[in-house]
């Protein structure tokens, strides 16, 4: 049985991600230890909170150096996706630079945070197989990654932004698949099958 690791660095949605995996029959390991993470088959990097404190937390365990070297399928969720970009405007935080994009704050006419269910335009990807285009996912965020060559899912909230990123073994989604009903479950299932 494959080993699924959730990186535990004090992010708020760790339990929700763990329970979502449980509902799919997977008992994930919660850890912040580099050796456990390196030997995992799949890695999930959750995130609810604020970019600077999150970077500080993962740096304590040297994970800022470990994560970019990983070769296994890796899924960053919400803040976990923003942190694998290069930089966040949230307290001007230098991030992990797996994706070159800089994360910006929403400057829109609508309410911020962008909170609720929104539709995502999908490009073909193994991560998204069986999910129909314009599928709804649940978002809660005030910062976003712009559209780029690695965008495989885009969403509109006054501006178009990256809802899903893919580059080699690294995936990120801005929404919360663990809270996105059947579409979210399908995405997590696809990730586990990569």
């Amino acid at each position, binding site marked *: 049985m494959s080993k699924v690791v959730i990186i535990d660095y004090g992010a*708020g*949605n760790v*339990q*929700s991600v763990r*329970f*979502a995996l*449980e*509902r799919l029959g997977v008992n994930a390991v919660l850890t912040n230890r580099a050796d456990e993470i390196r030997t995992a088959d799949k890695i999930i990097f959750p995130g*609810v*909170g*604020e970019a600077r404190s999150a970077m500080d937390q993962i740096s304590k365990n040297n994970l800022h150096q470990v994560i970019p070297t990983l070769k296994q399928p890796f899924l960053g969720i919400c803040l976990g996706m923003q942190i694998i970009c290069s930089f966040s405007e949230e307290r001007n935080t230098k991030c992990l630079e797996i994706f070159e994009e800089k994360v910006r704050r929403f400057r829109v006419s*609508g*309410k*911020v*945070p*962008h*909170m*609720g*269910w*929104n*539709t995502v335009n999908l490009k073909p990807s193994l991560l998204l197989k069986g999910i*129909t285009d*314009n*599928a*709804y996912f*649940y978002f*809660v*965020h*005030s910062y976003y990654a712009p559209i780029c060559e690695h965008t495989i899912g885009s969403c*509109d*909230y006054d501006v178009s932004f990256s809802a899903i990123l893919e580059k080699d073994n690294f995936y990120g989604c801005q929404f*919360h698949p*663990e*809270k*996105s*009903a*059947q*579409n*979210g*479950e399908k995405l997590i299932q696809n990730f586990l099958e990569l």
Partner: protein
Amino acid sequence: MLSKRIIPCLDIKDGRTVKGVNFLDLVDAGDPVEQGRIYAEQGADELVFLDITATADKRKTIVDLVTKVARNVNIPFTVGGGISSVEDAYAALQAGADKVSINSAAVRRPELLDECSANFGNQCIVLAVDAKFIKGEWIVHLVGGRKATEVRLYPWIKEAVSRGAGEILFTSMDHDGTKNGFANESLKEISMMVDVPLIASGGAGSKIHFKEVFERGQADAALAASVFHFGEISIPELKAYLEKEKINVRIN
């Protein structure tokens, strides 16, 4: 496009779902976790659980409920009904709640909103407020609507948002249980006054009330209990109706 949200509310007492008609008479309506799971399958966008159990160890009661719900439900949910400190909020969020709703405790000590939003971010802090229209003014009520205060509704909502409430859940006690529709005029006023999402509560009786609350009341979400619990309106049927009426709702 961001959709309007439909939110069933489950009042919990001693581990069971209840619904107060005008807040007072309680009727048993089942197991909260099972019911939440069914609502999620039917297409509810979010759930609210209000724990009205009076126990010495309230925090433990809430954490038990939250853990059970978080294990079984695949959509976001809010828990309230006894969050009166940062520690209570932390325990509920840590157990898997997406948001906490704070009502009386914030009226008694508004700084609680600052403290909670500083610790957890305003996106997970919902200010719940129950109010009644008395002599030309909306007056905030406490303890599930039983106790009047001196606090006026609109200034309180403004203050709460500036302190860190990230969403407002407004229940009109004059509309709650009547099934005559939501308090659309006041909701519109609130929606224009603050830049955080607004959940309307109190008065849902038929499908057209939901259309009205999104159009006239400009609410971002509508919450109801008995019309869903007793099967008077089913969520798939409500969403199909709203879609036909050009309201943006999540169907898939």
